[in-house]
């Protein structure tokens, strides 16, 4: 049945994440299009460890606003590896230290630094069944070292492998009961390619409607890529930036 299960308790939706799992975490900063409720459930209601996180930054979310804002960081002790483009983390931009800096520095957590566009394309390729592709990004740079170089039409390219994961946690504004998703503004970012690239995709949404209520031409992620829906309260709390929306 293509109707997707709806969880109102996020803990149940993430309860089967095992030790050693790889998890794609949607979102661009710690707040923009980030599945905060799923992140918190994984952090606070499971014991899963030895995890690999794939996302634009390190696994952290921002809660609250202004003086009250705080960052909730997934403890490096439970993480084996992070694959990301921005290991400095969103908190660092705001002058708040990120414990992953030390964890990457002393090697207790492995860091795979991937340019943002290559990261997005590796995830898209994973979802699209393309095991490798060539990109000019990274030629001559330390993050391109050791990769196969091949020349096409007189220009050098690096071979990059697809990325797939056991789970994808994505954030959308609305779903229908078939799991079709729409996103709000720039909260889309990594969420659609990640939804394609995981064995189990869990979508955190603020509204669930009947099939047909979202016109087909407006659906961004089709439900074929989505396995579970988690309904959360609409979130309008300002959380990031000068006027803090996200």
């Amino acid at each position: 049945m293509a109707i997707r299960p709806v969880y109102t308790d996020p803990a149940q939706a993430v309860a089967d994440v095992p030790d050693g799992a790889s998890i794609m975490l949607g979102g661009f900063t710690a707040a923009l299009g980030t599945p905060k409720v799923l992140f918190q459930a994984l952090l606070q209601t499971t014991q899963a460890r030895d995890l690999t996180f794939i996302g634009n930054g390190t696994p952290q979310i921002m809660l609250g606003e202004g003086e009250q804002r705080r960052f909730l960081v997934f403890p490096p002790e439970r993480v084996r590896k992070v694959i990301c483009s921005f290991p400095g983390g969103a908190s660092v931009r705001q002058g708040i230290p990120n414990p992953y800096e030390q964890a990457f520095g002393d090697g207790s957590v492995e860091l795979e630094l991937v340019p943002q566009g290559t990261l997005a394309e590796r995830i898209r390729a994973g979802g699209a069944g393309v095991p490798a592709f060539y990109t000019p990004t990274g030629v001559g740079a330390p993050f391109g070292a050791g990769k196969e170089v091949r020349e096409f039409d007189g220009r050098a390219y690096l071979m990059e492998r697809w990325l797939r994961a056991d789970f994808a946690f994505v954030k959308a504004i609305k779903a229908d009961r078939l799991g079709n998703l729409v996103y709000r503004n720039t909260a889309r970012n990594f969420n659609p390619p990640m939804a394609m690239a995981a064995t189990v995709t869990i979508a955190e949404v603020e509204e669930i409607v009947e099939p047909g209520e979202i016109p087909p031409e407006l659906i961004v992620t089709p439900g074929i890529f989505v396995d579970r829906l988690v309904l959360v309260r609409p979130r309008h709390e300002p959380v990031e930036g000068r006027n803090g929306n996200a």
Partner: protein
Amino acid sequence: MLETKERLPRELIAMRVAAEFKGGEFVNLGIGIPNLVADFTSPDKGVIFHAENGLLGIGRAQEVGKIEVPDMMNAGGQPVTAIPGAWLMDSAESFAIVRGGHLDIAVLGGLQVAENGDLANHMRAGRKFGSVGGAADIATGARRLFIAMEHTTKEGELKLLRRCTYPLTAIGVVKKVFTDVAVISVEPDGFLLEEVAPGWTAEEVQQVTGAPLRVSPNLREIALAPY
């Protein structure tokens, strides 16, 4: 003393970069000085700004302390609006725009630029890791890459060099450098000094540049008026 000689403020560097736009270009702006370029770009030029987090058609900043449009941010995490006719996309589509050669111009900051067009902008020497973000893809993919930065570090270290000493972000990509003392093109045979800040001579710019400058026969002063 060149250390104390007056240099252009960041806003004037940004204003000079904006003068490069002829009209109708698709442009990506990096964080820092590059982000200021939009403020000096006349709306009449019809330049469309791209944010790699998924917005083609960045509008003005949102009013402080007010959520005008939820979840609408530029790549620096600042709340912005979208222009009429803007397009929203996911990260893979956004970098298809970048990598596919559809961006006319990108303006990024730089830690070091070499005379062969190499760019180091994501990691200082001695650090264990750097945050590259989208800079490598954008530097590699844009048809023309401009760098907007201070000519030297606050400590007086040179940033325009024969070869970068910091880890490279992209190789052979920089077309033109806009600094607080000069505008320099990167040519196949090295740096070409085209413009100097008011009060600066070519010899003085050379003294704060770590690679030989050829001086353009049309050397002129950077114009300090909106274009």
